């Protein structure tokens, strides 16, 4: 998502629009350095986090006593506000169904609150479905502005003769800025080259200055003609060129010659450009032209070359006949979701957000989303589209994977987490390099500045709070989103597509599956949910998340995880994303060339994300830390205990370390270990419900051709036998719903202690599996020693102990049988006649005969 530089910056004289530029905020150059030194106090996020936890708990106790109405009002304040403002706007013209949307949102929120009164999580006071992470402090004394370089993912802040840069990936609030000295002068935009060797600074509408970072050498590039302005520029990894200038007259592509330290013009595309939008993520530049600025030409400068997209127009509703609105740069966003590139356009008149999807040779309008705020902003987190309704201070989430236009949940507000509050700061202060030691006099009203006017939204998931100079990263609170919907299957579907926090999503899925079963939700509903999980596993398998184990699809996926490590994770991931997306281009569109750059970028994104963690500056809060930390230390696994809820204690010790989980897909084995087995333990009474659920699971697995391990079968057999539903158990076995295996056979023999028919089924299964030894042993146990001997002879089982048969024959006190057994072994085992067994039983046989006589 591009930033809207000009909106928050000083009035820009450089042209009609500068969408692609990366300025977030900048002071007028003449301003005296505004020193708002807030020091490192802000970096005490972890301390704060801990303190916050306690606050939450206290809050919960309190809340339990507050009235329901109160809670509704607290919880649904945003919906209430939306509805209120909507009604207020329309009064006095009252009509039927007016503000229906808002009303429904409010109503559902209220209902949800009522339903969940008992399970309100402490601390998440309002709807904290979205959590911003702790911010990065980008405050530098004397700063003259903030710029975001999305190519390198850095925040730049020039001050005096220095430019400070913070890496935002991995997002680390404790990151110290790197400084480069630059020459003084006006700065309109600043970007590092992709290899990090050059700094390009736009000095004016006609001049861009380049500086070599190591040597400090500079050279400038100026426009030849006075009639054209430079709107902006960006570095590219396209093989054609290194940097692209966007000018009012078109695109100039330059290659950088490192020897001569000059730019060489490679190609020029002549076009009238009013303004442009570019994101490095998509490698796509959209050039707006025309009276209304709604005609677009797009170029993608990917690593395979430059592709020109067909010209297209965006839809704009008219207010009045003669009043044609002009599309502004800040109303157009390029977003990358699931490897697809979309363009979102705000139609302020129609209050709609139109979406367009880019194919190689086509741009297809995909439908529109309603917006409820005159000002919106777009973020993308983990392929979820976030539409910030800035006026209403809420976010609406969309998962456009299935082309569904329905929001995932009700509108949600943001919750700032790790926000340094002056009260919790105490005297702690650790400072950034060389910063002043003034302890933060932190403006206390900051807590209230949600969606302040000076918030700038950066691609794809960053928010820069210009006034306080904090950079926030948006983070989805999956748990809260999951809790906000009662439709389990759709939530699971959503969670299964989350890759960023695969571990958490997986745990949530498991917990939800367990809960749904324990609560005995209708079988059809649970079946639907299970289908989602099975299908997702099957898909992730097909796309190769479980690489390296393809050959042994049926094997434990635990092993699969173990084979994937560290960086190879990312390699295989991006790779597979590529594949999966290519498949979408069945309609003859060349997905590869078009999409690849996105992926390579996604790559680096994910690199960062996997490593992205809260810093472990003080070890006290290690509970919350994972990721890179964990990986470095190897086997240390500390899990998000609070994520998974109370019923998950069992899991902690056993599930793989978080860092190794790359996909929320759940293998059949995990279903057994973390869903069926624990549920079976907890579930009292009639197990037929659980059997029904397992049958649905088996059905799903069968449809997807996923092999199930015998332990689930054995469990099913056990459940049926416990309920004395032997007839059904027989059916399950005969129809091979429970596939034959040694485990199942032994379970049948065990369950068959009270049911002869079932025991026989177990025996038959052993025989059919050619488990001769076991079969014979059980036969003898049941007293069929003669039959066992015949079987031994036929199948040449050589490992049997004669004494076992002799004992059984003796126990039956049938001298003829004993004699027969003795004879059998004498004939078939050489040397048996001289063995002690023979002697003992020969003697016993004689005694028996004596008695009989």
């Amino acid at each position: 998502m591009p930033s809207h530089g000009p909106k928050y910056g000083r009035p820009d004289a450089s042209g009609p629009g500068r969408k692609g530029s990366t300025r977030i905020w900048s002071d007028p150059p003449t301003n005296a350095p505004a020193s708002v030194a807030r020091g490192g106090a802000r970096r005490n996020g972890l301390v704060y986090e801990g303190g916050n936890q306690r606050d939450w708990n206290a809050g919960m106790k309190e809340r339990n006593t507050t009235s329901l109405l109160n809670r509704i009002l607290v919880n649904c304040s945003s919906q209430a506000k939306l509805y209120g403002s909507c009604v207020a706007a329309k009064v006095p013209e009252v009509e039927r169904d007016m503000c229906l949307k808002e009303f429904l949102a409010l109503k559902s929120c209220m209902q949800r609150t009522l339903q969940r009164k008992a399970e309100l999580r402490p601390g998440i006071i309002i709807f904290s479905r979205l959590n911003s992470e702790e911010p990065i402090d980008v405050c530098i004394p004397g700063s003259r502005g903030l710029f975001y370089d999305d190519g390198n993912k850095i925040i730049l802040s020039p001050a005096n003769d220095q430019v400070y840069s913070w890496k935002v990936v991995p997002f680390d609030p404790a990151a110290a800025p790197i400084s480069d000295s630059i020459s003084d002068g006006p700065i309109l935009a600043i970007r590092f080259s992709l290899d990090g060797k050059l700094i390009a600074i736009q000095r004016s509408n006609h001049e861009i200055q380049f500086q070599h970072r190591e040597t400090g050498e500079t050279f400038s590039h100026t426009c030849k003609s006075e009639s054209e302005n430079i709107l902006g520029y960006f570095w590219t990894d396209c093989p054609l060129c290194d940097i692209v200038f966007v000018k009012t007259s078109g695109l100039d592509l330059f290659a950088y010659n490192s020897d001569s330290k000059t730019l060489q013009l490679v190609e020029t595309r002549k076009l009238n450009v009013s303004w442009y939008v570019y994101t490095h993520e998509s490698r796509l530049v959209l050039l707006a032209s025309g009276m209304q600025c709604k005609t677009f030409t797009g170029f993608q400068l990917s690593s395979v070359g430059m592709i020109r997209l067909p010209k297209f127009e965006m839809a704009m509703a008219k207010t009045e006949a003669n009043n044609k609105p002009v599309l502004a740069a800040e109303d157009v966003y390029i977003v990358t979701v699931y490897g697809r590139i979309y363009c979102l356009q705000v139609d302020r008149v129609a209050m709609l957000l139109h979406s367009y999807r880019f194919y190689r040779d086509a741009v297809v309008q995909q439908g529109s989303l309603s917006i409820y705020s005159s000002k919106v902003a777009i973020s993308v987190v983990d392929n979820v589209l976030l539409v910030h309704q800035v006026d209403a201070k809420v976010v609406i989430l969309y998962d456009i994977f299935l082309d569904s236009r329905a929001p995932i949940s009700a509108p949600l507000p943001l919750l700032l987490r790790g926000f340094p509050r002056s009260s919790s700061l105490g005297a702690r202060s650790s400072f950034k390099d060389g910063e002043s030691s003034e302890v933060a006099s932190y403006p206390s009203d900051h807590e209230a500045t949600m969606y302040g006017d000076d918030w700038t939204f950066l691609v794809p998931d960053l928010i820069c709070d210009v006034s306080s100079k904090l950079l926030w990263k948006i983070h989805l609170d999956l748990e809260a989103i999951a809790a906000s919907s009662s439709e389990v299957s759709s939530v699971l579907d959503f969670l299964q597509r989350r890759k960023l926090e695969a571990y958490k999503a997986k745990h949530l899925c498991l917990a939800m599956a367990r809960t749904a079963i324990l609560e005995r939700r209708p079988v059809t509903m649970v079946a639907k949910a299970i289908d989602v999980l099975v299908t997702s596993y099957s898909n992730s398998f097909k796309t190769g998340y479980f690489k390296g184990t393809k050959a042994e699809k049926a094997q434990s996926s635990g092993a699969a995880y173990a084979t994937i490590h560290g960086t190879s994770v990312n390699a295989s991931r991006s790779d597979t994303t590529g594949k999966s997306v290519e498949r979408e281009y069945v309609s003859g569109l060349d997905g590869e060339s078009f999409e690849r750059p996105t992926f390579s970028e996604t790559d680096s994104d994910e690199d960062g994300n996997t490593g992205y963690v809260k810093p472990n500056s003080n070890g006290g809060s290690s509970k919350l830390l994972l990721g890179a930390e964990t990986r470095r230390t190897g086997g240390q696994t500390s899990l998000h205990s609070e994520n998974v809820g109370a019923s998950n204690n069992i899991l902690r010790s056993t599930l793989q370390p978080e860092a190794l989980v790359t996909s929320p897909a759940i293998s059949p084995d995990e279903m057994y270990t973390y869903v069926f087995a624990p549920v079976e333990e907890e579930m009292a009474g009639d197990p037929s419900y659980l059997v029904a659920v397992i049958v649905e699971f088996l059905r799903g697995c069968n449809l997807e051709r996923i092999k199930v391990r015998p332990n689930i079968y054995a469990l099913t057999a056990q459940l049926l036998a416990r309920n004395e539903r032997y007839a059904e158990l027989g059916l399950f076995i005969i129809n091979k719903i429970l596939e034959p295996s040694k485990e199942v056979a032994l379970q049948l023999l065990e369950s068959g202690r009270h049911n002869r028919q079932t025991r026989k089924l177990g025996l038959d299964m052993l025989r059919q599996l050619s488990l001769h030894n076991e079969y014979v042993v059980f036969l003898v146990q049941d007293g069929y020693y003669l039959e066992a001997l015949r079987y031994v002879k036929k199948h040449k089982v050589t490992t049997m102990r004669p004494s076992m048969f002799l004992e059984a024959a003796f126990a039956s006190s049938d001298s003829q049988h004993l004699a027969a057994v003795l004879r059998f072994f004498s004939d078939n085992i050489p040397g048996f006649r001289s063995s002690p067994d023979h002697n003992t039983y020969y003697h016993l046989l004689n005694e028996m005969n004596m008695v009989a006589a």
Partner: protein
Amino acid sequence: MGLSSVASNSEGMQLCIFDLRRGQNEGQELDKILFFYPADLPFSTQLSVIGLSEGLITFTRIFSPEAACEVIEAERHSHVFFEAEPDIWMVVIVEKNKEAEAIWRVEGLRKVLKEVHSLFLMFHGSIRSLLEKEPAAGSVRSQLYIFIMDYLSDFLSSKKLQLPSFRDSLKERATVQMLTVGREAAIEVQSLVRVVESCTGSQSSHSLLLFQDLLVSTTLSPDDTINLFTYAVLRLTPRALSAGLSSWSYLRKGSAASTAVTGPTMGSTTSLSEPFHGSRGTSAGDDHSHAVRPLQHDRWSKGRDGFLITDIWQAEPGSLVSVTPSIWLQQTEEKMYLCAYQHKSLTFIFLIPVSSVINGEQGILAVKQLVLEHASLKMLKVEEKLSKGWGGENAYHVSGYRYLLVDGDRNLSRASPPGKVATLTKDSLLALSKLREEVDIEKSRAKWDNDGHEKDLEICTRARNNAWVISQVTRGKELYMVLENANETLLYASDAVQKFSNRYCNGAFSLD
């Protein structure tokens, strides 16, 4: 009406039910008799038949209190005994007629007695409990009479009762015939079963699923499965329904029993009970007229919503409002509502405990609605799947073999299709009938000898027409086989069995 003609034409067969605990005093002997067929026989004859039976039972009990008399083989008659409930005996007396078809297998006849009693239990509860409720036994008698006569009407063949004879040797009563389904279909079926069960909202509800006349799935106990299956095949399956509608059809295939002429049999209830009550001279009044007749023909039909409907069960005597049928489960002794849904060849029967349905018919209607809502799609799917895998009438024919396979543990049987069995010569069938008789005796002996330990048994006999008649009993499974025009060596016969066993029985008969 058919009944009287049956009576007049069947001197060859008598069937009676009597209670040893009743009529102990001089002059009250008639009280013992609960049922006698033919009903128009003079009481003196009835009493002499029952007196003989009672005497034999009393006598044999001296030696074997557990199991008294099983059969009397007289010169001209066979008396087959069955103690249906403690001290309530059923006896069937058949004439030994050298001519043609009158050659019976005792166990086959006893199975008929068992079957009719089990069905009666299912619909009315035990005779003993009915007697306890009504010591005068008037309505018990009428219930028994109506029920058994309805049952026997299935054996009517050209106005003559045709009890199972040697021709039915490759058939086993009181077993269930199952459809063989693949794993995928089986899972779908189970999924359907579970969904329907969850719709009924009761944990002790049960279901039975049939495809054509074959069982696909059951959640009932084995005994209840047999009873309900038998009833379903007699009256509920698509074939049974259409048999009622078009009894004249030439296309109807199947056993002699189910092809019994049903058209002209039953008249009104009054004419049915006339001979009985007339002869008894009791003033039973009208208590019989509302006796439920679940085995009556042509009373089931398919409703518009796919559920089978009947007017057999009525809310009140004489009222026209019919209610949902209910049956008794043998195992749990629970009363269950019976609902049957039919889609093409699929018949889905589900049972809901009466106690769990709060507001009667309304509750049932709600459950039906739920089932339609949640499961009708699944039914379609299952039906489609099963039809695809269904091999037709002769699906279980194995060329060269005429066989009967009985799994005693699961009460299953599978046999060559009747059309194929009909190709066997009479000699082969007679030989088989005899062989089965032997095996029956051997089996019952083994049962008393050594409880729990199953003996293996293998008999091969050479019959006329170069036929091998083979029987093998292994660990609770029985296989009967007729191979006509077969090679004369015994090796050939045993090879044939081995092949069959490995191919169709998972090697159950080739253990050693």
